[in-house]
């Protein structure tokens, strides 16, 4: 069963084709990884899915629904959450506030209720808090709950961003280079978490990643891109053995 499908999507910035007619499908309950050299268009694909860029052609399907024309802020409500390559946390807020903001798509109160902090707001705040605490337990962030992001190390920030994405209760989780900037140990933790996210939480993961150890460990399918085009798609082993992929990474062989 396909959860997400990209149909012949392309995007041009001036004369440059960053993504040039890509099609792929992500099965429910799997980890799907996009690899490729720098500038291959991986993050652009992510930005197309989270509707920050508009595709020049093609369609995006999520849960049998065409999301190509939706505005960016409606994506989270549908069940697509993402992290960013260069961490985009709310720097001057606490970890808890960041996670609670992850609950924004589920806000059920109106502005006037917020002004008066009515019992309904209080109840929904407590419910959001319980959900955030579940995620804090899951990712072992209890020690940092009240820290300001500005005071946290890069590795912890990466986890907080993952936690914030999980707080939206997504069906599809987009991870943009989850291991970049992490040391070996932290990368191993990340690999375990991604597996747990898939198995325990039942969330489908679509990720961009460079670290091939991590890719091999967690991915069910791998898609290799170069210059905005598909080089190969298959299991991690198949893709790594593919002659075009070898050529893209190592130069002409």
């Amino acid at each position, binding site marked *: 069963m396909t959860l997400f499908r990209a149909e012949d999507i392309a995007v041009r910035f001036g004369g440059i084709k960053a993504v040039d007619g890509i099609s792929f499908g992500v099965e429910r309950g799997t980890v799907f990884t996009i690899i490729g050299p720098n500038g291959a268009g991986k993050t652009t694909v992510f930005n197309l899915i*989270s509707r*920050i860029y508009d595709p020049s052609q093609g369609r995006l399907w999520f849960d049998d629904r065409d999301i190509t024309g939706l*505005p*960016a*802020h*409606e*994506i*989270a*409500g549908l069940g697509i*959450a*993402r992290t*960013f390559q260069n961490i*985009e*946390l*709310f*720097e*001057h*807020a606490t970890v*808890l*506030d960041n996670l*609670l*903001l*992850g*609950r*924004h*798509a589920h*806000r059920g*109160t109106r*502005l006037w*209720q*917020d*002004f*008066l*902090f009515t019992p309904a*707001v*209080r109840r929904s*705040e*407590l419910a959001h*808090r*319980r959900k955030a*605490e579940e995620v804090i337990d899951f990712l072992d962030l209890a020690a940092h709950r009240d820290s300001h992001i*500005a*005071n946290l190390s890069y590795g912890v920030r990466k986890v907080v961003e993952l936690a*914030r994405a999980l707080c*939206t209760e997504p069906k599809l989780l987009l991870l943009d280079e989850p291991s970049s900037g992490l040391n070996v140990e932290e990368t191993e933790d990340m690999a375990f978490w991604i597996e747990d996210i898939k198995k325990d939480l039942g969330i489908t993961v679509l990720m961009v990643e460079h670290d091939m150890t991590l890719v091999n460990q967690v991915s069910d399918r791998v898609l290799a891109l170069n210059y905005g085009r598909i080089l190969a798609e298959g299991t991690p082993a198949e893709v790594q053995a593919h002659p075009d992929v070898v050529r893209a990474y190592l130069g002409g062989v």
Partner: protein
Amino acid sequence: MRFVFKTDYRQDIGLFRHNGDRFWYGLLVLLVAAAPLLLDRFYLGELTYVFVLAVAGIGIMLLTGYTGLVSLGHAAFLGIGAYAHGYFLQQGVPFVLSVPLATLLTTAAGLLVALPALRMTGIYLAIATLLFAVIIEQVFIRWESVTHGFRGFSVGVPQVFGLPLTDPVLFYYICFAVLALAMLAAINLLRSPTGRAFVAIRDSEIAAQSMGVHLARYKATAFAISAGFTGLAGCLFAHKIGYLAPDAFGIILSIQLLLMAVIGGLGSLHGVVFGALFVGALPQVIAVLRDYLPDRIAQQPGLEPGVFGLILVAIILFEPQGIYGRWRKVKLYFQLFPMYKAATFKRQKTYTRSERNK
């Protein structure tokens, strides 16, 4: 140093963090409530003015300190609130109805400005709001049937609770009540999803959007709410100055209002009060200092704006977190005494620097 042992999620969304807070804020409220007994008329009037400034400050803090949108045109909103209130009073609308009406009108004006202003951020937004203020000032001058042009008009003196509003003690308590309610509303807003969305927009628009924050809607909301608070302050301001003329709502006032937020400490409601105290008290301090300065300096016409600017430069250079930031540091120093490290707040400082280089 106090460590709060938390056993309930409700502790994190309560108004007070612990009983110590309850005690000190309670004492402050008692002191402020007893001020008419302790202070003479002049200082009571000054304190009233500080309250009025603080109500406007809440509006600016929500917009600039929490949503990250800089406005250099808030004098216009203060003016719209003041003129609307003055006009309604003239038409015979009772005080208790006129204030909410004028506030709503200013909120609508804020929404109207927000629509084109949403496309801009940073310095461009500041310029756009500045121009808006210039336009509104012209409206005050030209729309004679309502504003009486350059001549202006004197604000009516309504009866509230059987007393004329010119009664300083009554006016003091009204301003105090309005400030307290406005503060409560702002605190409520900030501990609920709306306030979190504002902070999210300030810190990272792209992440806020991806978490489901409708940027345009929330920015417009922030603008409208900010204008509303400032308009509410405008109603009180009208009674404070007693006579409305366009030159009361010029660019200088806009700058003073913005500086109030910056000097107090961006991103904190405490900062609003500190900033209002500062902006309200500085002219008095300078007036007193004049007596002790040599004539050549004391008689300079630009002394006040000069000192104001100098202090502002010093604050931005040495204490970007404003008076409230300094207050927190001093408090921590005594809490940790004698263990306070000079580098306790170092990371924030280096962080600001790297951000500036970006």
